[in-house]
């Protein structure tokens, strides 16, 4: 279990992280979101003891996290780096050995991992001869092959196509099932929403959201409706409490002033009987992100 308590860090005038606290239990995934410069990488570096916080502390299973705990960590930095002249096998063995896993053990596990991530290439291929996507997979394998108990992935999905992104999602889920505590940062709310149990959103170093993903969404109330009915855009806008109507597939997406308005919309839409869709939901993480960040996350 990882506990981060009241971390503060500033670089000169700039306050990079302000009073940050969160907990990640074993078998739990925390999604860290925020724009560039929100303090995500600084947070990771403080957890890993690469940066000393100005104040606050990091605990692993109740004791302060130190360099002695580094063997249980699997860390994928945002800027990827591999030894281009090494072979896949040499590279993975070296990184795993640095985390205390014997070369023989790594050798045994490697084929399995290469299959799981569908790496196109042989163990004896030089890293520089692999495609960028495959290099990224090798980097992931090097990060995870020693079965880390604490996994920190900085933007693991960036640059992955949907097929490989879902391979990675499977990989993360697998670690979760094995009981690892996982933190990852992402720009893509889709990934965060899908796999994270908890969510932490940073804006210029300040925590703006912190909690269980579903609860955060729920806390905003069911102010969205996806609707496919005979009602037109004009009809919908005429309903009191509907603040916005957008085209959505064959129907509309409505923004409500409050969840109660949903009942009125439902009554209006179903007054002639059957309709194809009525789905009242809390706002998506993407919308919350935009609301909280004040601008688009793209």
């Amino acid at each position: 279990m990882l506990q981060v308590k009241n971390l503060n860090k500033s670089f000169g005038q700039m306050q990079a992280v302000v009073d940050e606290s969160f907990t990640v239990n074993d078998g739990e995934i925390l999604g860290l979101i925020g724009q560039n410069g929100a303090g995500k990488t600084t947070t990771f570096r403080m957890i890993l003891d690469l940066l000393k916080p100005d104040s606050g502390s990091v605990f692993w299973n109740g004791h302060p996290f130190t360099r002695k705990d580094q063997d249980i960590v699997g860390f994928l930095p945002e800027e990827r780096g591999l030894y281009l002249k090494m072979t896949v096998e040499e590279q993975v063995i070296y990184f795993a050995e640095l985390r205390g896993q014997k070369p023989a053990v790594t050798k045994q596990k490697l084929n399995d991992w290469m299959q799981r991530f569908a790496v196109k290439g042989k163990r004896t291929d030089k890293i520089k001869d692999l495609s960028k996507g495959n290099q990224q997979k090798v980097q992931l394998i090097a990060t995870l092959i020693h079965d880390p108990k604490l996994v920190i992935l900085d933007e693991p999905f960036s640059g992955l196509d949907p097929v490989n992104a879902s391979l990675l999602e499977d990989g993360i889920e697998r670690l979760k099932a094995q009981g690892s505590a996982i933190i990852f940062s992402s720009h893509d709310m889709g990934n965060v929403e899908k796999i994270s149990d908890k969510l932490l959103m940073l804006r210029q170093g300040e925590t703006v959201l912190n909690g269980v993903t579903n609860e955060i969404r729920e806390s905003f109330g069911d102010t969205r409706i996806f609707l496919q009915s005979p009602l037109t855009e004009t009809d919908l806008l005429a309903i009191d409490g509907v603040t916005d109507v957008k085209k959505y597939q064959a129907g509309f997406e409505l923004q409500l002033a409050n969840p109660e308005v949903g009942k009125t919309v439902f009554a209006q839409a179903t007054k002639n009987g059957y309709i194809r869709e009525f789905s009242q939901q809390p706002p998506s993480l993407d919308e919350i992100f935009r609301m909280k960040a004040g601008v688009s996350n793209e």
Partner: protein
Amino acid sequence: MNKFWVVCKQVIRKNIKSPTYIVLLLMPVILLGTIVGIAAIKNHTSETPQIAIVSNNAPLRSALLKSNTKKAYNVSKSITTKKAAETSLAKEKLDGYLTVAVKGSQVSAIYKSRTNGKTVDTTSLQNSLNSLKMQQTAAQLGLSAKQLATLFAPANFKTQSVSYTNGKETAQKNNQQTINSILAMVVTILIYIFMVSYASLIAQEVATEKGSRIMEILVSSVSPQIQFFAKVTGMFVLILLQVLVTAICGVFGLKYLSGNVQFLKDLDLSHVQPNIIIILVLFFILGITLYTILAAGLGALVSRSDQVSQAVSPLTMVGLAAYGASFVAMNSNTVLIKIGSFIPFLSQSIMSVRYAVGNATIMDAIISLVILAVSIVLVTWFTTRLYANHVLDYSDQKIWKRILKRN
């Protein structure tokens, strides 16, 4: 400690496969090969001249034939008459022929040679003839071999050169000074070559990892301090390997070439004093250590590997200055040279020479070594901090500003 060796092993393994290191390692082998090759070619082309010996005194002739132990010339034994010798000379089968005439106790000899033939070292012919005549005369006078030896024993003649330090005479054998200067020269050249090569090699090593962002993974797995020492240690193993290869080449080269090159023949290595060797080796080791450690720190300051030469150049410049100053120190002992021989980064070259040529006492050398050792400790402390603080710093700040920035 475990991870220390993992990193150390990695440095060795990676570099041993790199072309840069292999070329560096094989340089002395290639150099020696070239020299031996040239010597061999030179030996091959200077064939021994073919001569004939003609005499009216058969025992003297056969004695002369036997005296050619050094094979300075080949003798066509079948040619015994002047006429046959003339014919062979005209046909260019001989390069020359020696006619020895014995008349009573008088021995006279004429060596006739072709101008386009190979030249014979006539002094060796003359010497052989002289000693033969002497033996003959001695036999006639009834002298024993022992008496003969006593008669011709040369007077004992030795030269001695001295230098004065603090008014006290320090005796040095003649040959020794030359050898010491040569030794100091060799060590200074080696220090310079090793320093430039390995300083840039380790700086490159560090900068590549930083530039390719591998550093972040490394420092999250192994503390920068351990990493730093492991890298420097790995580099030392590589340097040691190089020293070994160079030393083996040196020994083989000396053995092979001393038989062929006059300059080396004249050197009597038995004159080498052990204390000079020890001091030179210490300066070599400590000097290289100082440069390597600082170079590793400088490598951590750059953001990309192509900035390495820029970061290391001040260091190599100082090395070059020390190298240049050591040549000055061969022949002069000015105040500037004296001061320089105590300053770390310069002392390894200047003091080596000053001590070897007898311009500095052993006490001076030891003081300079101690200063060097202390500075290594300080530089290591400073560099480890520098390394730990800057391996993850990718700002575009000027390198020297970063060194000065405390944090």
